[in-house]
């Protein structure tokens, strides 16, 4: 199962497994663009006749995209800013024939109004095609409509936000985060300004991956992604948890003492498998019978118990 989960992300990025809509979510400290580029990298060698990549750009100028991608034959660039959605759909339709395999990438969905999202996305999800789009997460302005004029009062709405809709629509969700938590010291808090952590936007990052199969079953996993080596490394759940919780935990211990205070994976597993005595009691299962909250004393061989002595029974 783990082996299967470990390979499924690579297969989706190489478009060997079908996922019509892949959503990449990123954070202010870690961009998802490297994962986006990985989709292009894994498919750029395919012949333009059989496969086409369409780059829909809302935030990256054409020259910057060309600088990022390098020489790629099968990529078509479309500058989408200020373009009507219908015009974007027409342009995409003109670039990809109906039965041609294709990859459509969108560098930012943040400029789309939440009310217009479904009508924008739906025509871009096509047969034989995979749509990969980035959503930038902001710290607090999660529902802010960037097309809204300054000062206009936004009516409070119970309509789902852009992000909620995307999480519902996407067949694969990849959430990108830095490999090590940013170490924010007191100086930075005192600074009263937002500071990009040193080491942010690295080429190596953590990916939380959720893939929804047609059957309804979801496959989840955590990966470490190295863009320089174009590698996805599957992290088993416990390792992923410890990486996310205290990415620098082992590093903090290193150098403090000459003793080895770290634990190996084998030692950690052995420790986790130790059955602690109080756990059985908490479940109320002692001697095969449920005893509720009563105190139960189990006599052992060495106990000298006299049934006739009224002071013998402590209970």
């Amino acid at each position, binding site marked *: 199962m783990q082996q299967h989960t470990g390979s499924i992300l690579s297969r989706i990025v190489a478009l060997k497994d079908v996922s019509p809509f892949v959503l990449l979510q*990123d954070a*202010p400290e870690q*961009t998802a*663009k*490297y994962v986006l*580029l990985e989709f*292009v*990298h894994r498919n750029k060698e395919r012949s333009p006749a059989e496969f086409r990549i369409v780059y829909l750009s809302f*935030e*990256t*100028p*054409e*020259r*910057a995209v*060309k*600088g*990022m*991608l*390098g020489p790629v034959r099968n990529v078509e660039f479309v500058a989408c*800013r*200020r373009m009507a959605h219908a015009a974007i759909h027409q342009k995409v339709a003109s670039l990809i024939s109906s039965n041609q395999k294709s990859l459509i990438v969108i560098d*930012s969905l*943040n*400029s789309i109004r939440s009310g217009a999202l479904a009508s924008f996305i739906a025509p871009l999800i096509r047969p034989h095609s995979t749509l990969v789009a980035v959503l*930038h997460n*902001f*710290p*607090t*302005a999660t529902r*802010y409509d*960037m*097309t*809204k*004029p*300054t*000062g*206009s*009062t*936004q009516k409070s709405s119970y309509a789902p936000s852009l992000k909620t809709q995307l999480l519902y629509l996407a067949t694969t969700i990849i959430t990108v985060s830095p490999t090590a938590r940013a170490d924010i010291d007191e*100086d930075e808090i*005192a*600074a*009263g*300004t*937002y*500071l*990009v*952590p*040193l*080491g*942010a*936007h*690295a*080429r190596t990052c953590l990916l939380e991956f959720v893939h929804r199969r047609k059957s309804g079953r979801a496959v989840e996993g955590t990966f470490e992604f190295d*863009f320089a080596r174009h590698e996805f490394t599957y992290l088993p759940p416990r390792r992923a948890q410890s990486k996310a919780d205290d990415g620098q935990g082992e590093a903090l211990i290193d150098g403090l003492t000459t003793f080895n205070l770290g634990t190996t994976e084998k030692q950690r597993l052995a420790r986790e498998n130790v059955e602690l005595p109080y756990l059985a009691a908490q479940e109320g299962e002692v001697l095969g019978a449920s005893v509720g909250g009563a105190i139960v004393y189990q006599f052992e061989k060495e106990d000298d118990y006299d049934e006739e002595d009224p002071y013998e029974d402590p209970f």
Partner: protein
Amino acid sequence: MSISSDLLRVFDGKYLPVPAASPDQGDDSQLLLITASLETNASWLLQHFARSCIGNSTGRSIGRRADSLGGGGETGAGGDRHWRAPVVFLSFVQEFQFYARSFKKTGVDVSSLIQKKSFLYIDGFSKLVCDLPPAAASESRPELYLRAENKDKWIQQIANAVAGLSKTTSYRPMVIVEGIEMLHVLGIWPVQEILDFVSDLQEIAGISVISVSGSNAVLRGATSLSQGQEALFFSLLNRASAVFSIRSLDSGYAKDVTGVIRITKGGQPSGDGKAPSIDEGEYHYFVGEGNLSGVRVFEKGHS
């Protein structure tokens, strides 16, 4: 061919990077973002970038020192810069005379550069933020004033003005914008249109340098204005190749340190097969008496 950035270069033996020409890397219209806290002013850093592009009146590039350069590369160790590019300077928080004086103190005669068509000053303050009286006839003036009533034509006006710049170099101009958040504060455009305006400028520019307020007092809040500022700020972070964050000294006042500058990567990747071009770090800087030549950037703990 236009300017591509090589941020591994150091500036005058200190730690401020300066964009360097490396035509083999292609023309990638990068965005360098400068964020500043409320107590600090980024104008000295904007001027640094302008000077790195235009050089000073003597014709030598500012701040180049033979022993300070990184090895190899297009500019080469010990050599003068191989390129010059025009500068387009747009400020929404200062008038033209402020920068004319500031540049003059450092030996850069802006009026002369304007006449030579290698410097274009666009005034986004005098007619937009407050209606200042026109400068005296004897004083030089900016070539273009931005006015709210014709905001839809700004990019065309800028493109026309840029077309009139000197053609002695094949590099695209460096576009420097100070205080882009004012467009949101003044209600000129919604955040998305401001970002589109930035993209338009990036199309015109080789390298764009944009300053924005990064103060928590501006970004954090439940008001629509704060939310918009936050959306603008983080959208720009996502588009930037490098981020220069300036803040005041955390421990208070010091005679020989003005503040702290942190250099980090932005959300725009360096691309497939390219090594990351940002040397990250955090340094102290000192700005002496408003004289740009007195700016020093140094390791913490040194002076």
